[in-house]
């Protein structure tokens, strides 16, 4: 690792991040209302996939609660703002605190046991969350959810149209930056070490349980923040969106794209999000079948996902192994 001039080293990621934001946000201003809506959801799926990839791909935790936390974020901001009438910053902080509390309550008991147990507990949490939403009466709005609210003015500004899409673009870029930084640090290596060989990780001084709990809480909070942003995309929150089906779709995105790789998560999310738009005219509602085939094909043919195919092609041209 040769370090270049330190100024360039510091400027590069910032400039790259700003560039990505300008491109992603700028694109929204060239789209109509319908495409803005699709684009916003695409960006949210990418955000979720990035977070879930860190949990599942980097840290090796098989959890199905990601969408429940997305829902906790979405519902909590709406309930805190419009039923408890908290000011926006306080509502956001309370929503995050709620996500942290739930994440710790799930992660701390489950990490003491093996991976399968976490999958079951989070699956149960996902289902329970939907039940609570459906039975929540006036607080959650029951099966119909909560609607008829809109983003309050923040510092006298009401973001709408492509400007709100820009907020989501900022969320994607910030999530990506945070996760990449974590991944390239002692923490990311500890997560990968725990995934690859927990006993050896412990022998290297990694607190395995603590690392798992932090990774779970952190990615769950990121999902919760995504949910808060989502709450003002449709200006309605209702139970089906936060169900188990979407949690599985997220898992498929990460596997098809390439688990453990940020770029893979992005590719998987974009592909599986857009696929129904292309497939529906051809096969109607049977696109779930195509997803199934894709996932099985990915696992059998290229366990490293689409990014693995890209790596092999790139290696052939460069002739050197890349990460």
């Amino acid at each position, binding site marked *: 690792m040769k370090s270049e001039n330190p100024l360039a080293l510091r400027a590069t990621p910032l400039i790259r991040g700003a560039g990505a934001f300008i491109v992603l946000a700028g694109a929204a201003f060239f789209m109509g209302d319908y495409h803005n809506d699709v684009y916003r959801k695409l960006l949210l799926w990418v955000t979720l996939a990035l977070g879930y990839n860190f949990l599942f791909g980097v840290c090796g935790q098989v959890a199905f609660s990601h969408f429940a936390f997305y829902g906790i974020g979405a519902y909590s901001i709406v309930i805190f703002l419009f039923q408890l009438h908290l000011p926006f910053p306080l509502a956001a902080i309370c929503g995050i605190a709620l996500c942290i509390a739930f994440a710790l309550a799930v992660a701390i008991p489950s990490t003491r046991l093996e991976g399968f147990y976490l999958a079951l507990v989070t699956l149960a949490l996902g289902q329970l969350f939907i039940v609570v939403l459906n039975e929540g009466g006036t607080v959650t709005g029951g099966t119909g959810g909560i609607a008829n609210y809109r983003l309050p003015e923040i510092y006298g500004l009401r973001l709408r149209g492509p400007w709100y899409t820009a907020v989501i673009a900022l969320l994607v870029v910030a999530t990506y930056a945070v996760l990449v930084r974590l991944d390239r640090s002692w923490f990311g290596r500890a997560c990968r070490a725990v995934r690859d060989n927990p006993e050896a990780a*412990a022998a290297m001084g990694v607190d395995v349980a603590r690392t798992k709990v932090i990774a779970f809480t952190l990615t769950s909070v990121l999902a919760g923040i995504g949910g808060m942003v989502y709450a003002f995309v449709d200006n309605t929150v209702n139970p089906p969106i936060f169900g188990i089906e979407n949690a599985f779709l997220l898992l498929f995105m990460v596997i098809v794209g390439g688990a453990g790789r940020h770029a893979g998560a992005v590719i998987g999310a974009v592909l599986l999000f857009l696929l129904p738009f292309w497939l529906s005219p051809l096969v109607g509602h049977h696109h779930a079948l195509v997803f199934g085939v894709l996932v099985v094909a990915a696992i059998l043919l290229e366990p490293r996902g689409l990014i693995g195919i890209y790596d092999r092609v790139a290696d052939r041209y460069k002739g050197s192994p890349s990460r």
Partner: protein
Amino acid sequence: MSALLEVRGLTKRFGGLTAVHDLDFEVREGEILGVIGPNGAGKSTTFNLIAGTYAATAGDVRFAGEPILGLAPHRIAARGVMRTFQHNRPFAGMPVIDNVLVGAHTRFGATLWSVVLGRSRAEEARRRERAAELVQFVGLGELARADVTTLSFGQGRLLEIARALAGEPRLILFDEPAAGLTAAECARLAEIIRGIAARSIAVLLIEHDMHFLLPLAHRVVVLNFGAKIADGLPAEVRTHPAVMDAYLGSHAAH
């Protein structure tokens, strides 16, 4: 030389079987202490007790004067006791250099918050440079960026050593490091272990192979059936009747 690691009355029973019985020994600063014994002598159990993998039935283990028996493995590592595994346990999803960096885990000072804010790059670069030196030291210099799954068994063992050294230990525990290595690799390994001792890092070497251990160790402890049957300089131990008896059978001793 003072004792860095003190083992007193260490005992481990698995049900009715006493794997280690009332064991006493010490590792001094900067020395290579060998623990040998035939199969089933309790070497691996002793190792796992010190490393924190097993809970002891009785006894006391002190490192630099502090009790470490009963601490979780990651806390023992954080105190400065690193280990290698007999069956290599690499982190398969990472290149060689990142495997070594995991070994330095407890030496990172940056908080998660400073990582997120991007303020930990200097430390990261410094540690990476240091890890590269260790990869070089064990002779894997050209493979620093390689995928660990492409390493041979012998190279994997060298990686185990570099990874343990990255934790800046005062004591390294080697679990049968010569097992499965070729004669040439054993010679190289012995040279590396001497190099480690020369950096004034103490070495505790659990080893089945006397021919590998005796020329290398400064002192030797011999176990049989979970108890110490002899200790002393390699030359003394080699001709000790109880040792010959344990290793070669009772006929050879008489």
